[in-house]
């Protein structure tokens, strides 16, 4: 041992042998099982269902038929709702971002010096999660109802016509979506802004950057990862949401989204193939939108 220490040329460190440990596989097993059982199997079953055709005996059941027509029919019938879903989701994402960014900036940067206040404000952001979002959405329905305080006072001020409503309109649906997804937008934004190094802002200011150009050229690019994950966490579930737009909550007949259509096809009309086809279309469109968005934002490492 001692001799090798003086043997002259330093011994090259050998690369650590790749351990084919069985423990790793065992540890991975629950996760893999979970994915197979609750993702792969339902997905395959969904694809199969989406290709079924009504049984010829007229019993109302379906059988496998590789019926592509389901996709053509359902997209043709519900193209308005599909378009509307993405429009509403986009609007809700934009509004949630506009609302959350200043909030997250305030919590993550401005009150950094007071950690206690910072934690308190974060709790306020998360607090709505302590109540079921169904209840919260119902509460909004009451608040925005025709006899509710907002509509009556707006009407009293003549800002709203006598025959107008808020509930059941697209405004209420987009409002509900925005409200429900603000925490999902705010938290990722907070985590990036909380780590934002103030020295970069000082450097920008030192290099003749006005507050506005410092914000656009330094703050926004440096918080881009938070913006991307926040918008994804909002846009994806909002596009498929069926609670806010439901007529029992904030929506109306003219504001139903793809989620409502899928729900009614599955549970009311019992047209399983159409519902399955719509689900798959929804999934694919989201994948395409998100994929190109993330590529454009240059934050591939998020995926």
């Amino acid at each position, binding site marked *: 041992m001692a001799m090798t220490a003086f043997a002259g040329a330093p011994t090259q460190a050998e690369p650590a042998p790749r351990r084919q440990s069985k423990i790793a596989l065992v540890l991975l097993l629950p996760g893999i099982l979970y994915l197979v059982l609750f993702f792969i199997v339902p997905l395959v079953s969904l694809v199969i269902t989406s290709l079924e055709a009504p049984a010829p005996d007229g019993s109302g059941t379906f059988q496998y038929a590789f019926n592509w027509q389901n996709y053509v029919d359902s997209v043709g019938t519900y193209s308005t709702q599909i378009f509307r879903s993405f429009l509403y989701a986009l609007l809700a994402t934009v509004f949630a971002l506009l609302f959350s960014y200043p909030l997250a900036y305030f919590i993550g940067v401005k009150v950094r010096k007071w950690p206690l206040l910072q934690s308190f404000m974060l709790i306020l952001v998360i607090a709505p999660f302590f109540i079921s979002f169904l209840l919260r959405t119902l509460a909004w329905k009451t608040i925005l109802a025709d006899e509710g305080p907002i509509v009556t006072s707006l009407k009293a001020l003549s800002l709203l016509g006598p025959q107008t409503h808020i509930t059941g309109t697209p405004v209420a649906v987009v409002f509900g979506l925005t409200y429900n997804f603000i925490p999902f937008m705010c938290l990722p934004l907070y985590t990036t802004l909380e780590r934002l190094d103030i020295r970069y802002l000082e450097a920008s200011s*030192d290099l003749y950057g006005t507050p506005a150009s410092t914000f656009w050229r330094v703050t926004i690019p440096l918080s881009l990862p938070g913006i991307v994950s926040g918008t994804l966490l909002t846009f994806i579930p909002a596009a498929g949401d069926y609670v806010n737009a439901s007529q029992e909550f904030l929506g109306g007949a003219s504001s139903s989204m793809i989620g409502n259509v899928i729900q009614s096809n599955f549970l009311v009309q019992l047209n399983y193939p159409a519902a399955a086809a719509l689900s798959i279309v929804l999934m694919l469109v989201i994948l395409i939108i998100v994929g190109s968005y993330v590529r454009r934002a240059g934050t591939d490492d998020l995926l």
Partner: protein
Amino acid sequence: MAGGIFAESGADLELVGIHKRFPGFTAIENLNLTISAGSFFALLGPSGCGKTTTLRLVAGLEEPTSGQILIGGKDVTSTKPFQRPVNTVFQSYALFPHMTVLENVAFGLRRRRITDPIAKAHEALRLVELDHLAARKPQQLSGGQQQRVALARAVVNRPALLLLDEPLGALDLKLRRQMQLELKNIQNEVGLTFVHVTHDQEEAMTMADTVAVMNKGQIEQMGAPEELYELPKTAFVANFLGQSNLFTGPVTASNSESITVTVAGAQIVVPKSRAQVHDGTITIGVRPEKLSLLTEAPAPTTGVNVIGPGRVVDVSFSGVSTQYVVEVPHIGPMIVFAQNMVFGPVVNVGAQVWMSWTVDHGFGLSDSPVPEDADLATADLATAQIATAHAAAQAGD
């Protein structure tokens, strides 16, 4: 903003009665400072002395509690950083991680809408010899390269005033020397006013025309490096800027040209012109390299001070010179630097030696060393004070 044109040349910087208080402590107290255009000014001091705060005040990143900041005669105290013709090379470099090196350098030019920012940025990168890395991101560069980019990013704007906040701190010695030369060249070339904050006294002395030594939020002494080194006025400067042998004792004789201080029985003469105080108990000193080591007691000569005998307790060889520590009874350890004119040390540990120096090399301070500042040269302060008191008692008899 300067309206899209470069500053013609450097500008004067004037700080008038600056106070800066933070909750709980005062960083700067009544700071008055004038730095003339085109000079290379170094603000030297230990950490926490307020030098970085001073720089941030000039850059506009902090607001003074009271006082005025004038750049080129114009009061900029209440203006924002982006409105000041000032650029900073930050200690952390603060290069924008989401931009290429080139875009980092062009940032200030673009904000001021200066024509042809890319060409000018390339030019600045050529000045620091990094143009070949223009397309890289800052995190792909080494510390020294990042530092040079930070310098290019500031210099490219031709600010009236360039602030450097310990920018060489992260570099190794060789690179630091090289950067010091480069900085000096750039300053000569572009003629800007440089304000350099550092705790490295050697760096301050090699680079700056004027050095201000700062301590506890105030400037202790300011002047050319040679002047500061050869004639320190306070104990802090004497010990912070190089090393000093300091002695405290009463003034026992005085004539029109010089005063004599008695230290542990030895009579030490200091020219009046080099002493800040001429009566009472004062502290005087001499630089270690001004001392000559003698192995025999020299004959008393006018114009030469002698201390001894003492014992050599430590000899350390450092290539160019050798440092001897000599323990003198009632005075304490003294440091002597001797150039290595012959091979090896002249005397060995345990040898009995005398130390002499020309009267003109001594200096008298305006204050006495405070115990907390004590280092090797003043470590035996208690002994020195006892000796002083003893000598004073004797003188009184």
